[in-house]
């Protein structure tokens, strides 16, 4: 009985915060848009009993998903989001790993302070931090002023409202999510393993490659997921830092919902986005599990 409750809690959590909202979104994605409150039809009318329920289901169709395939805008936006999310995950990893490595290798008494410094930016609202980047990157901003002052450039660089600014924004924002899990993995790493590798004739680089890196793999994977998943659906960063040429699915979703006021199509976009995220992750986890079982 106790076991049942233990399992029931996470399942109830999933049901309330994931499954039920998903079913609502799925339902709207099968509806038609209409100028009314709420702006779609059909809505479930229980007062009419069975007839109402039958009418409700008869009104649902896949029209909006067909619409998504007919307009190449959506595929371009999905692909472009995947591309931006992948690149920024790699960039974040390249910057985050050395930081985490340095933190794990630093003297014990410094670590808490270093950890604090990584977490510190979270004390300010995410929105304000992205706004700050607008001030830094704009034509008249700090960065351009500084570069002009030291004489590296003659005319201000256009960074704000380009994809470069989006990369900067994403890498900056999600860097702690990469550093922390990698640091956790490296911190647990048994230093004697590396000593052993070196004793057995590995160069330092080889020891890093053969021992440190494979053992920090869980941290790297967790960090990559933590960066990739929110970056894929990111809306705030591309809309504040990106230009009108920055095509990301989060922005398309917002536009469908707020500009086109087309809830059904917006919901269809969201359902597809979820499938794009969930299916590879499920496949990946299954693969991992199989490997683990094979290892045992």
């Amino acid at each position, binding site marked *: 009985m106790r076991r049942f409750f233990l399992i029931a809690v996470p399942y109830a959590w999933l049901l309330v915060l994931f499954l039920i909202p998903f079913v609502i979104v799925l339902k709207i994605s099968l509806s038609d*848009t*209409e*100028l*009314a*409150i*709420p*702006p779609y039809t059909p809505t479930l009318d229980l007062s009419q009993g069975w007839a109402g329920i039958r009418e409700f289901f008869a009104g649902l169709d896949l029209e909006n998903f067909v619409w998504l395939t007919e*307009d*190449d*805008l959506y595929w*371009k*936006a999905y692909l472009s989001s995947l591309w931006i999310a992948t690149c920024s995950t790699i960039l974040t990893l390249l910057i985050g790993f050395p930081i985490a490595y340095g933190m794990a290798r630093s003297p014990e008494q410094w670590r808490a302070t270093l950890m604090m410094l990584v977490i510190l930016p979270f004390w300010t609202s995410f929105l304000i931090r992205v706004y700050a980047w607008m001030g830094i990157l*704009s*034509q*008249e901003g700090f960065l351009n002023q500084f570069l002009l002052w030291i004489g590296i450039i003659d005319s201000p660089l256009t960074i704000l*409202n380009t994809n470069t600014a989006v990369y900067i924004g994403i890498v900056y924002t999600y860097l702690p999510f990469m550093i922390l899990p990698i640091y956790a993995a490296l911190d647990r790493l048994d230093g004697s393993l590396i000593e052993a590798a070196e004793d057995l004739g590995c160069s330092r680089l080889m020891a890093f490659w053969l021992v440190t890196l494979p053992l920090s793999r869980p941290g790297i994977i967790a960090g990559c997921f933590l960066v990739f998943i929110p970056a894929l659906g990111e809306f705030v960063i591309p809309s504040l830092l990106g*230009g*009108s*040429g920055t*095509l990301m699915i989060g922005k*398309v979703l917002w*536009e469908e*919902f*707020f*500009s*086109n*006021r*087309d809830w059904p199509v917006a919901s269809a976009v969201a359902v597809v986005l979820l499938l794009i995220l969930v299916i590879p992750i499920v496949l990946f986890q299954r693969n991992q599990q199989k490997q683990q079982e094979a290892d045992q």
Partner: protein
Amino acid sequence: MPRKLTGALATVALLAPFAVWAEEVRVYNWSDYIDEDLLKKFEEETGYDLIYDVFDSNEVLETKMLAGGSGYDVVVPTGDFLQRQVSAGAFQKLDKSKLPNAGNMWDMIEDRTSQYDPGNEYSINYMWGTTGVGMNVGKVKEVLGEDAPLNSMDLVLDPANMEKLADCGVYFLDAPTEIVPMVLQYLGEDPDSNDPDVISKAEAPLLAVRPHIKKFHSSEYINALANGDICVAVGWSGDVLQARDRAVEADNGVEIAYHPFAQGSLMWFDQMAIPTDAPNPEGAHAFLNFIMDAQNMAAASNYVYFANGNKASQEFLAEDVIGDVAIYPDDATLEKLYTKSPYPSKVQRVVTRMWTKVKSGT
């Protein structure tokens, strides 16, 4: 005695929350669209707590209205959007008996707004204006020469001009229902057309200038113009004039000017209305009546540089507001202004698709 004092203090402490407890009025208005002193004045005069939020797109407002339960008591949609939302049942009829200041309104404007709200039953006019072009005069002349077509749509719709302007930055409003009619007007088509074939003619000219547009945004351009970050913005009259004001205040050598288009500009009306499910319709009426007061309305216009629909307020308007033809156009300009009725929902989809396509440049 000390004990008595404590007792008294405790009573005060208990009562205090009730004493300051006031009913809330929640207003959802466009950004940079009021003199904030008026908000304080409203609270002082009526005793209501005013919660004032802002938006910068009719589409966002409509999404909230149609979702229902927005929690706002007063919202400010533009005429054509108001008409759509009235037909969706989003607004309640005004109780004119609670609006004694209604006599201050300007019949010329009420005539025009009745196109969207017959009999002005659901709304009052807050401000009206034109959609034209704002610019950093010095920079534009530097790029295009002294004889730059400052008040012509050629400035923003002729790719040759736009290519040269691209480097110093051009913003367009992110408002398809205003930009599409503008392009149709440029092409000599009916800007109020609901025919998808006519509307689709606007796509090619927009795509032609699209690579040279830095951003589609409906509020950032005020600061961007004032700071000298951009040199041209297709925008709303008063917003550009606010940018002019901010540039003067900053004393940064940026000179901003606004022009309605010589080819004719869109004339729009922002209407205050009360949502059907407003939590405090009583307070909402009080707010509308407060706004319709001649001096309050004049203070708002003097601050935001938009014309208002309040005849009685005109004697309190500053000379650089009532005397500026960019704000209160002369008869010749007025004649060239056109209005836009709402798109039917099928046509709306065509317009928004085209807009997404134009914005993403694909």
